């Protein structure tokens, strides 16, 4: 996805308040190739050895700003994560939750889940990323591997509507139970709903001029 507007990215009204909806999207992340450098090679060697279908399950490997990201096929996430946790040569014993990101332009891969993992034994970090289509937002739950992912997955469900299959109780956690919509999606406006006050209607913040 590549999109750029003008010298300073301004379009439309040329609003200089800083909220002019300045668009300059470049998500073209290049896949890395061997040698990766640092401990990444050693770790990947070990994973490939221990896990025969590794190359099929990992869509691509990206190294950016010194951080390694494995893009995993969503249906294989649980097995890859289990291997990363249990393999004595890598030992990612700590999962630091999950975070969703919504890329509406990335067709059929709109919703991404990002898992930062930490190996305390080797003091290494790695990131797993899976993407699922908005029409079928199902990702296997990792609560069985790391109980601490429970609330993180509930939060990601709450904010993005990603369904974690196998989660023991996937309910909203931050928003009220009867809330409609998933606030962190890009098509969800900031502020959300217009508020009536003494007969007049105050538009949600995202529809007021300075936020557009």
């Amino acid at each position, binding site marked *: 996805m590549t999109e750029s507007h003008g010298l*300073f*990215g301004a379009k439309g009204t040329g609003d*200089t*308040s*800083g*909220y*002019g909806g*300045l*668009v*300059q*999207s*470049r*998500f*073209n*992340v290049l896949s890395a190739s061997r040698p990766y450098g640092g401990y990444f090679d050693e770790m990947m060697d070990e994973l490939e050895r221990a896990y025969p279908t590794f190359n099929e399950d990992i869509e691509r490997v990206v190294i*950016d*700003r010194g*951080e390694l*990201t494995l893009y995993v096929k969503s249906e294989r996430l649980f097995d890859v994560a289990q291997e990363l946790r249990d393999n004595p040569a890598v030992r990612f*014993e*700590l*999962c*630091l*939750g999950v*975070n969703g*990101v*919504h890329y509406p332009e990335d067709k059929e891969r709109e919703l991404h889940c*990002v898992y*930062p993992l930490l190996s*305390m034994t080797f*003091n290494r*970090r790695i*990131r797993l990323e899976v993407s699922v289509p908005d029409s079928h937002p199902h990702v296997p739950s990792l609560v069985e591997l*790391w*109980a*601490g*992912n*429970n*609330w*993180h997955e509930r*939060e990601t469900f709450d904010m993005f509507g990603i369904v974690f299959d196998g989660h023991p109780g996937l309910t*909203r*956690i*931050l*928003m*009220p139970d009867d809330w409609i919509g998933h*606030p*962190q999606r890009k098509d969800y406006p*900031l502020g959300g709903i217009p508020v009536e006050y003494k007969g007049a209607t105050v538009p949600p913040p*995202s529809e007021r001029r300075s*936020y557009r």
Partner: protein
Amino acid sequence: MSNYDPYASSRETTEGRVYSVTGNDWDSLVTEIGATKEERVVVNMGPQHPSTHGVLRLILELEGETVTEARAGIGYLHTGIEKNTEYRTWTQGVTFVTRMDYLAPIFNETAYCLGVEKLLGVTDEIPERASVIRVMMMEFNRISSHMVALGTGALELGALSPMIFAFREREKVLDIFEMVSGLRMNMAYVRPGGVSQDIPEGGIAKIRETVKELRHNFKDNAKILIGNTIWMKRTQGVGYLDLAGCITLGVTGPILRATGMPWDLRKSDPYCGYENYDFDVITNDGCDTYGRFLIKMDELEQSLRIIEQCCDKLEKLAGAPVVIEDKKLGSPADLKVGPDGMGNSKEHIAHIMGQSMEALIHHFKLSTEGFHVPAGQVYSKVESPRGETGVHLVSDGGTHPYRVHFREPSFNNLQSLAAMCEGSMIADVVAAVASIDPVMGGVDR
């Protein structure tokens, strides 16, 4: 529900009989519940309750006074900070994230700024003086945060005097924050590229004096609780969580270190130059509330040690810049501001208003639109008073963040509540929650 009376002492629902407790009605409640055959009672503790550390709702299933099941209900302080940052510039984001964990604002700011700097690829260009000031402010913040944790924790267990002394010490730290940044809390002091302003003249002397006072007072304060029989009985063996439990629940910080695991990001993965400071990682092998309490007490002294080393470094680095050289990033453009923290330097105003049209345009663009951050994603982390504060930042190359996510240690650690409390007495729930030290601003964001 036409005859529903919210002030009735009890009513029938599909879930069973529900009792409303409004205060001063304990006797009638006990009589009423005592008349039923039901042994099991589900109690809603909070979200407005003095012992839950903020707007935390605990749902406790009780048999007598024993907790058979404990769950936490959160979300009462959700303010959508992460969503809001997507509508602001990268620099303005600092003002939002500082309000997440409001007892540890400097940690949120630093974690966020380290992430932005990593995205920009300027981590190595941050001036040393800025890093030293960040470290000093973080350690002061660790003290003020631990003071609230210890003070309110003791208060919740019925010990009133520690709270008075803890808040006295905290006040001294907040005075330092006010002197350095102009604000006592939520300072938005750390900015991408450095810090918003230098320490004022005579600041180091004041800091050294405060360190001396704090060290003296901490020794006194320790005597109030350590060895106190009631305190020991209320905290020892309470809220037990061992290493395996911590790892599977992703718990970090003092709770993890109370299992004997010396895990501290300041040592294991240093940032802001922590590798150049001499300090110890405090551990304890009690796995309980008392162990966590001792760790917090001992970490105060380590923080003071680091602050003293910061003072030495700052004296050597007098006059050095506190914001990145790159004029396209340092915001606002020139940070020689007055002690009130307002405005830019006279020279800078004279330059942009009288001498250089380009400088004026540049200042304007930087102040309104902000700077572009190359596309990509990073994860940055700092060791906050409660554990690993991780920030996942995604940029699409624009002047606003595409996604900001905080992995708040409070949010994560609060999950361990059930593991700590189930099977214990209801009074121990309060002690366990106090030892987890959740800050609801961080939990709910």
